[in-house]
């Protein structure tokens, strides 16, 4: 059975406080360095503009909820409010669809704080009714690189995970290829 993480972290901790000034724009570099779990990411009360994915710059596109798989990176611009009388929760939440079994008492969330004013209390974790994350397929690269011409080689991978006789998990890959000369 695959191991389920015991907790979600941001910058190797929980309850991280990120102090910000009002009316400024910050570049957030978000990296999912998990071995396994994807996380939903959002900032209560705020949207941000996605400008980069996996090191490739794209036209700024506004989003409020990201789905970040293991190993993906997102660069977003966050413009803070001009004035506010509260701090806000920055949320990460593990995608539990990936877990075969959910252990009792697992908290899939990590809460950090966008701190406009340290003297104000830190907010509760923000909740979402449902997850409708941004679809990264919508992004357009800033360099405008056009679709590559028809391929010289097509590699087709059909993949499935299976269980071997002794219970071990094994990936089965069927590889086909077509070369166009």
């Amino acid at each position: 059975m695959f191991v389920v993480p015991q907790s979600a972290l941001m910058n190797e901790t929980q309850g991280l406080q990120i102090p910000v000034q009002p009316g400024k724009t910050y570049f957030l570099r978000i990296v999912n360095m998990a071995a396994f779990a994807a996380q939903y990411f959002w900032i209560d009360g705020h949207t941000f503009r996605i400008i980069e994915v996996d090191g490739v710059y794209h036209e700024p596109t506004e989003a409020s909820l990201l789905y970040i798989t293991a190993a993906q990176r997102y660069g977003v611009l966050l413009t803070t409010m001009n004035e506010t009388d509260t701090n806000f929760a920055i949320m990460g939440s593990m995608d539990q669809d990936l877990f075969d079994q959910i252990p009792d008492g697992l908290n899939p969330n990590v809460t950090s704080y966008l701190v406009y004013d340290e003297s104000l209390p830190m907010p509760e974790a923000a909740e979402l009714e449902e997850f409708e994350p941004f679809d990264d397929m919508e992004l357009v690269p800033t360099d405008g690189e056009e679709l590559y011409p028809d391929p010289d080689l097509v590699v087709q991978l059909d993949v499935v995970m299976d269980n071997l006789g002794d219970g071990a998990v094994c990936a089965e890959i069927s590889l086909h290829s077509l070369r166009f000369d």
Partner: protein
Amino acid sequence: MPSLYTALTAGEFATNASVYGTNTNSFVLEHNSVVEIVLNNQDPGKHPFHLHGHAFQTILRGEDESGDFDPESVANGSVVYPTKPMRRDVILVRPNGHLVMRFRADNPGVWLFHCHIEWHVDSGLIMTFVEVCFVSLLSCLIPPSLSSTLRPNQVTHLLFVH
């Protein structure tokens, strides 16, 4: 034997995919060719696939349960590829869905394409692209501290069994 070292030492055999052994799931790519990867996820799980050495153009992602990619859907115009596709190097393939990606083999080296879930890498959900451009490869040297751990006889065995 790391595939990169095989590529550097196998001489004329480096462009024969079988020299890397069947478990590496290797393909040899011609320099500057356009390569299209069609990934059919016949599994109910979500998999984040990662390509080393390139950011691919992500041309099509099928929804959950959309089944295998159907080239007919492109031929008959029901699916239209974007003119300026999104580019990245880790992409989610949906349960029982599919992905179509393109990249140009303009970066000589040995590059893995694999699911980035650590346990799935251990289970073998991984393949290898060998991009050969002999001039660049010959200029690459294996550090002596590493070459002393190589066992050339194993490479020879692989060559002649096939």
